[in-house]
């Protein structure tokens, strides 16, 4: 009889740590919101799409690494972040900062030389916004941290659009605002479940400042605006019925999840299940909404 297979956690190596610094799971969604608008804006070559993906990954990864450098003191007190390379002692803060800056510099060069200067400038603006406005200024000082800081995550659609058209128009700005208004409900769902961690680290997330019930109400209001914004590109004639139907169905499900969570909280029932569902579904929601844009335009051509 053979012995049962032993399952072990992967041993951290420098390569794995460097990848972990870029937060690849978060970036995958950012790349979808950059790539889909490229196909909605025109018919980009696979080469352009590849360059934007690599440049986008490096820029967002660099921002995430610099974020880990700036947040190294609170990463040590939060269970969720304690195993990151700096608090775990596997990398020095200077190494992480150098890696982050190098990634951002490489991304700027790649996008500026091989795509266009506007796309490079917008990606770099997203980097600075994330590092200085969100991480350095707002994250530890305001419950609006996620709202305004969320703008950093809304730059990828602008980068994708600019990479194909060389300019920005009302559709690109609407896509920016869609991601902007999507961010608070998404992150506040997580914040509701990680309140102890955020409280211990002194990060004034909305549930800690406004309370759970008010945060849930705010999630509802932001989602209402989000759903209205998702209809706007169809209204101005940028997208067709396939996109409209997708936006309505996907949005209704998100709204339903938030209402379910709110009703559970009002009735004094456990709401962490619905909150977790909202957090996970909101990721899928944004990805599918953007894919619907690209498919709608591709089929219409």
């Amino acid at each position, binding site marked *: 009889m053979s012995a049962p297979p032993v399952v072990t956690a992967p041993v951290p190596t420098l390569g794995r740590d460097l990848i972990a610094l870029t937060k690849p799971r978060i970036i995958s969604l950012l790349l979808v919101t950059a790539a889909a608008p490229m196909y909605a804006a025109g018919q980009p070559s696979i080469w352009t799409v590849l360059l934007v993906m690599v440049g986008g990954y490096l820029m967002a990864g660099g921002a995430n690494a610099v974020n880990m450098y700036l947040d190294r003191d609170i990463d040590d007190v939060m269970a969720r972040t304690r195993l990151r390379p700096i608090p775990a002692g596997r990398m020095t803060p200077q190494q992480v900062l150098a890696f982050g800056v190098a990634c951002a510099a490489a991304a700027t060069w790649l996008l500026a030389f091989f795509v266009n200067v506007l796309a490079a400038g917008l990606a770099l603006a997203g980097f600075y916004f994330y590092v200085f406005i969100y991480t350095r200024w*707002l994250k530890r*000082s*305001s*419950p*609006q941290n996620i*709202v*305004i800081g969320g703008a950093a995550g809304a730059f990828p659609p602008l980068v994708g659009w600019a990479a194909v058209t060389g300019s920005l128009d*009302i559709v690109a*700005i*609407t896509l920016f*605002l869609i991601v*902007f*208004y999507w961010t608070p409900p998404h992150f506040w769902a997580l914040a509701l479940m990680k*309140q*102890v961690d*955020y*409280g*211990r*680290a*002194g990060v*004034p997330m909305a*549930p*800690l*400042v*406004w*309370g*759970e019930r*008010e945060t849930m*109400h*705010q999630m509802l*209001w*932001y989602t*209402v*605006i989000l759903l*209205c*914004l998702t*209809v*706007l590109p169809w*209204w*101005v004639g940028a997208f067709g*019925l396939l996109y409209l139907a997708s936006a309505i169905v996907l949005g209704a499900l998100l709204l339903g999840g938030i209402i379910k969570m709110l009703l559970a909280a009002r009735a004094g029932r456990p709401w962490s299940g619905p909150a977790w569902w909202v957090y996970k579904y909101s990721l899928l929601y944004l990805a599918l909404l953007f894919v619907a844009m690209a498919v709608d335009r591709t089929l219409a051509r």
Partner: protein
Amino acid sequence: MLMSVAVSDTLFWLAVALCAIAQLFILKAVFAPAPPPMGGPAEAGRAAGRLRPASRPLEMAWVVLPAVGLVFLFLWAWQLKHPAALASDAGPIAVASNEAAR
């Protein structure tokens, strides 16, 4: 699918109204906030001196800024669909500049 201008415009104004209501509730949370929650992680954070009160004027500015962005976006969208409204507002100037261009 062809949709009449009236129905299309009604949908637009419905979206504007919904956004305005939602934005009012968002503004209310900052301009007329409820008392902060007592006990729990928030209280622990404040006791440890880590959770500091935010600057009120800045909080107000942060919440007004996106609302202003929304207003501009809806105005822009309306002018795109109804360029005649814009042209009639600036009629003589537009005509004069066209003449000059010739």
